[in-house]
């Protein structure tokens, strides 16, 4: 089964992760059957937006299936708008992301975030938004309502709450069911059995896309979750490949 990975990263991490170079990404794509990957810069997310976006732009290559997201940091709205103008018209950049409220410290429905997103929204490319708790999901839903003509993807599908109740991913699933412009992306560290089945059952397989969080995580982890899930092969194909192909026009 072919795979398009809509949630991946290029760059270093502040953990003992050493397979993060372009050649490592290509090797992992080959190993796991990933045809195309959409990357955001870890440097842009965790440190320097401008330098990170530039690093990323240098490795993108459609012949190798390497596409990118422009990262924006709402703490720097004007600079973010410059980054959008610089990259978002480039066909190798397929969207905006992974907008990360935890690293920037700014909620995605804040005034600063909305002004940046409004600028990017004109390009009609999808937004990948990090969601790992109930507050993240709530703020994303506000954006989804504010920009009904744009596609938003809940990165990590709402995430995992420490209590083990699954409340945040359940909330994300409900929101994806309610709003036609909200999709779910499924990677995370802890995979509670039943979550993908519930997402397919409630939001529908058409609203779910495969992401790996490569190189923070190995694609093997999330591929394993999909293959362990009690869902149909048709639904797996939509999740692994077909939905992303359509949404990102790949």
């Amino acid at each position, binding site marked *: 089964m072919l795979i398009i990975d809509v949630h991946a990263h290029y760059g270093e*991490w502040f*953990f*003992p*992760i*050493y*397979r*993060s170079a372009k050649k*490592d990404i290509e090797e*992992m794509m080959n*190993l*796991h059957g990933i045809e195309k990957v959409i990357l955001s810069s870890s440097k842009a997310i965790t440190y320097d937006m401008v330098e990170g976006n530039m690093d990323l732009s240098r490795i993108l290559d459609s012949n190798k299936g390497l596409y990118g997201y422009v990262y924006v940091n709402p703490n720097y709205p004007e600079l973010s708008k410059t980054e959008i103008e610089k990259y978002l018209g480039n066909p190798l950049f397929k969207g905006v992301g992974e907008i990360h409220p935890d690293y920037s410290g700014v909620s995605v429905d804040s005034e600063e975030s909305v002004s940046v997103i409004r600028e990017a929204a004109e390009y009609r490319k999808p937004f990948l938004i990090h969601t790992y708790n109930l507050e993240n999901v709530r703020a994303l839903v506000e954006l989804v309502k504010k920009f009904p003509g744009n596609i938003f993807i809940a990165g990590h599908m709402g995430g995992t709450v*420490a*209590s*083990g*109740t*699954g409340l945040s991913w*359940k909330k994300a699933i409900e929101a994806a069911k309610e709003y036609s412009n909200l999709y779910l992306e499924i990677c995370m*560290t*802890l*995979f*509670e*059995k*039943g979550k*993908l089945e519930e997402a397919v059952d409630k939001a529908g397989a058409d609203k779910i896309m495969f992401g790996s969080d*490569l*190189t*923070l*995580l*190995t694609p*093997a*982890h*999330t*591929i*394993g*979750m999909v*293959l*362990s*899930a009690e869902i149909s092969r048709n639904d797996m194909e939509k999740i692994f490949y077909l939905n992303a192909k359509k949404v990102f026009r790949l």
Partner: protein
Amino acid sequence: MMHADKRFIVDANTVFGTYPKRKTDVSLKNLIRTMDLNGVEKALTVSLKGAFYSYEEGNEETLKVCDTDKRLIPLATVDPRRFIGGREEMENLVRRGFKGLRLFKDIQGYPLDYSPIIEIIESMEGLGVPLLVPCNEYGCITLLSRLTADKDYPVIILGCTYSLLSEFIVSARKNRNLYVESRLLASSDSIEVLVEKIGASRLIFGSGMPLEYFQASYRIVESARIRDEDRNLIFGGNILRIIKEAG
């Protein structure tokens, strides 16, 4: 596709019972079905009754279940919020056939620096069975390593992620008792880094099934760029040795 049934797999992290926090099937029947589906030969298991309700009743249930299916290896648990100490209780658990002690710190919410835990760690000296402890926050492995450095039994860290990897490696170099479960070591090269830095003999495969998706943890190890003999140690060789030594 990667097929688990080509390997001899012993899963060091399984549970059964009921799960009160959301609707999901963690029944014994589903555990057995998931083992069969994925070609798992043996599983260390423990009743969730001991984690959520009564560890005494949970332990009885675990023993009973493992008596009826020899692929299941019983782990005992105690709830430190109820446990008021005593070497005798620990000796009795081992005498009755439990092959290790698993704590549910993640569910029960106590800190590691907690008198009943220190008592448990002291009480296990000389019994020869492993202690399995979830550690998912910074400093937990460091403290556990310090508390068990002079002990004579293996300590298996459950739920270690890439963010705790350096803490584990540095601790494990100093404390030969420390092992780590592979389940959440999901970064692009966690398994390779661990094998290179401390050796495959310190990694133990666990899946968390049926509460978690088996293939997610299986494929982390199966796809790692390590020697096949190291992979086999992780998938079962190491935990079998530990259990065998436990008697």
